[in-house]
């Protein structure tokens, strides 16, 4: 199985405080890994480290460059003047690629279709609800056809139907070789998802496998 992500003994610090303290994990093509743990246990810090947004103080990180990331919180202003469709399309950008192709537009459209937000493409993001905006970010991540999909609390704000839709999309992507790493503090989000491996973290360390 092709490996998409390998972290070994990762330590990530804010100042002198390690929020992630010696975590190792791997994810192969077609695999799904759930990372759970209490608030403040270091889940988001770990995903930011994997995404390349925070440096590792020690340890190693090897991953495919074709990664898409759905952050827990978007740092942009809520009233940023952009349409939902414009945001989704940015998910197809890669280093060295400056223009969107016809194919990119098709992928963005089908991602929006799959997530049931096709009708919202021309809406300005400031007019969207929280769950609608989350689906915009999910569509942005999946339309880039990633080999590694990193999701930080993607179910927050999703209704039961959207939740089901999300998992069926993820299964489709896994069958095409995408590895999925999903963070959630709420175990009920991943109840009845048999294919996932569950890693529980606490105080920045792996506390158990379920």
């Amino acid at each position, binding site marked *: 199985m092709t490996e998409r992500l390998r972290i070994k003994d990762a330590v990530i610090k804010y100042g002198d405080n390690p929020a992630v303290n010696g975590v190792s994990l791997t994810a192969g093509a077609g695999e799904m890994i759930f990372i759970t743990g209490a608030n403040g246990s270091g889940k988001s810090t770990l995903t930011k480290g994997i*995404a*390349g*947004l925070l440096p590792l103080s020690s340890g190693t990180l090897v991953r495919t*460059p074709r*990664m*898409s*990331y759905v*952050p827990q919180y*978007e*740092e*942009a*202003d809520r009233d*940023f*003047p*952009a*349409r939902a469709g*414009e*945001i989704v*399309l*940015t998910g197809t*950008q*890669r*280093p060295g690629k*400056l*223009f*969107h192709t016809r194919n990119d537009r098709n992928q963005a459209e089908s991602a929006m279709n799959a997530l049931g937000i096709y009708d919202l493409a021309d809406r*300005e993001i400031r007019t969207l609800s929280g769950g609608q905006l989350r689906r915009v970010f999910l569509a*942005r991540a999946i339309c*880039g056809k990633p080999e590694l999909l*990193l999701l930080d609390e993607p179910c927050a704000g999703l209704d039961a139907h959207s939740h089901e839709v999300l998992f069926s999309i993820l299964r489709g992507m896994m069958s095409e070789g995408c590895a999925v790493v999903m963070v959630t503090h709420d175990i009920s989000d991943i109840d009845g998802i048999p294919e996932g491996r569950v890693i529980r973290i606490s105080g920045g360390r792996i506390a158990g496998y379920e």
Partner: protein
Amino acid sequence: MSEVIELLSYPFAYRALIAGSLISVCASVLGVILVLKHYSLIGHGLSEIGFASLSLSSALSVQPMYIAAPSVITASFVIMYVSRKYRTSGDTAIAIASSAALALGIVISSVSGTASNMSSYLFGSVLAVSEADLVVAVILSVIVIASFILLYNRLFLITYSEDYARSLGINTAMYQLIVSILTALVVVAGMRITGTLLISGVIILPAVSAKIVARGFRSLVIISGIVSFVAFILGLIMSFVINIPAGAVVILSNVAILILMKIFAGAKS
């Protein structure tokens, strides 16, 4: 109207018209990024440093651009770096640096006995637009517009979410650098016309107005450019008719447009 037509028969007016409108459009397009990224103060800081450079160059009697261009570009790097690193306290650093630069410029001008040039630096002068300035303005606007078209998707992505861009492996610092250099060049080229005190308004105001009515990023960029162009033309014409420095009237036109857009948007909702 006949005055306006008569005016265009003067080469200086014609040069001011072309150079000024090109620079206004470039400034406003870059302004979109600066406003959305909360870097509004950059233009202000850079123009004060531009003022100090102009004072220095006239004290030393060297070509203004030889001192202004490198020092403003260097300052733009420093300001970008400081505001990236310290987020909010960047504002304070810019405010300190810009008032220090302004004070320094005044001291240099006074000591060197070139203080009579000072008001033309501060308030700008359309008469100051030479053939060479016009050429610079044309080249600069080609560079700015071409970069914007070429990098449009990237600039949108980074302006909306720098973190997301970085997660895709994109070198966001490089794009930040490009935007700083272009802003510095626009400030240097534009400050002679509008004055160092007012160039930052030419950068920021059209984007703020456009943000009120634009729907989506593309329309924001386009409306910002149009607003800036219209405000410049209005300002230039009025400055000739009532004989007031063009920069001031351009800014007041921009403010008037901003107020009208606010009223218009308020009436609609």
